[in-house]
């Protein structure tokens, strides 16, 4: 019942269209690259690269070629490199069609929290605030509930925000929801989940 990580990633990949330039966050969003199939998608890595390729073959790692998660990667025939100011110029300037990101909390008004838990070790927001402020469409992929079984789709975020009113679509193990006027709207229910189960698992207002 419900989608697993790979099914969530596969569902997120359906959001992508031919010709899009896309930024994928770490975690489940990274898996989305495995499901784009024949679509002509160009991945941006915000440390300064368009056209990110897969991990290198063992032994071919290059210290000068990493992604924003600091992992060794490879280039493609379409790759272009640039500096960090240019990289975020294109992000802030709206040239990236979509970002697919993880989240700790999403609120029914589209607020997103995914960078900080007060009282815990603080690592920093990295490029997340720039991405959610700049890209064309923000798609969140995350588990519907936290490890205590509580909804991560809330009336209001409790954690410090990454961005205000920035989320367009949420893909969870329970289904797909859009942020609309007044709350969240169910777009799709995951295999093995009923709409009632999805509603029951969601704190945020669900509108029809």
């Amino acid at each position, binding site marked *: 019942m419900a989608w697993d990580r790979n099914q969530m990633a596969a569902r997120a990949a359906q959001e992508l269209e031919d010709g899009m330039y896309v930024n994928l966050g770490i975690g489940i969003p990274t898996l989305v690259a495995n499901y784009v199939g024949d679509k002509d998608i160009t991945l941006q890595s915000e440390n300064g690269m368009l056209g990110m390729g897969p991990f290198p073959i063992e032994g071919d790692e290059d210290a000068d070629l990493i992604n924003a998660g600091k992992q060794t990667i490879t280039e493609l025939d379409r790759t272009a490199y640039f500096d960090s100011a240019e990289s*975020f110029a294109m992000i802030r300037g709206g040239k990236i069609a979509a970002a697919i990101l993880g989240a700790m909390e999403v609120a029914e008004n589209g607020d997103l929290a995914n960078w900080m838990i007060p009282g815990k070790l603080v*690592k920093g927001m990295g490029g997340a605030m720039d991405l959610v402020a700049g890209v064309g469409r923000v798609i969140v992929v995350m588990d519907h509930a936290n490890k205590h079984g509580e909804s991560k789709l809330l009336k209001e975020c409790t954690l410090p925000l990454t961005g205000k009113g920035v989320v367009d679509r949420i893909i969870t193990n329970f289904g797909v929801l859009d942020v609309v006027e007044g709350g969240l709207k169910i777009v799709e229910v995951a295999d093995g989940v009923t709409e009632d189960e999805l509603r029951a698992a969601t704190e945020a207002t669900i509108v029809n």
Partner: protein
Amino acid sequence: MQKVFANATEALDGLLEDGMLIAAGGFGLCGIPELLLDAIKAAGTKDLTFASNNAGVDDFGIGILLQTKQVKKMMSSYVGENAEFMRQYLSGELELEFNPQGTLAERMRAGGAGIPGFYTQTGVGTVIAEGKDVKSWNGKDYILEEGIFADLSIVKAWKADETGNAIFRKTARNFNVPAAKCGKVCVLEVEEIVPTGSLDPDAIHLPGIYVNRIIQGDHEKRIEQRTTRPREEA
């Protein structure tokens, strides 16, 4: 005008001062000015503020200056890989100013370009916006961020000619270009100094005007996350 120096210590001679603001290039451990950081450690300069996207790891990158307690403050976007950093930060020994990564890069670029302030949507409605001027365009709010004007830039390129024209390799370019531009003085370390005239003038990433001193040396270029596919997939 001789820009080439024998080593990092000589290249930094007369430039280091306690309490100064240093802009450093690099992303994670990729493209960091290893040799200049070693020389700053050896020089023992204190109370430094670093504008740098990351703080290195415990024994590499800016991390080596945290161990010697030479750093007073970090202006960064992500410092998650460094235990000593967290210890000093939580104990109040180290100041930390978080900047969204793109805002940090743009603040460096702005400082280098003589722009003291610019408006951005990044961080609106978050803790980053606190205390900052707000202005609206077309019904949307933007916050004012300020250019970074550093006392010194330390950056690492792949190759440079003797006039300082420099090129970078792959994603090691990252913050090195904006960091180089925002300092009053810029010291550049490279893997190879090549004769002036041997770089394609259409392909220079950092024109020599931004570079005051250059050194060449061997770089460890440590890999932080070695991720691979098995060879049989190829």
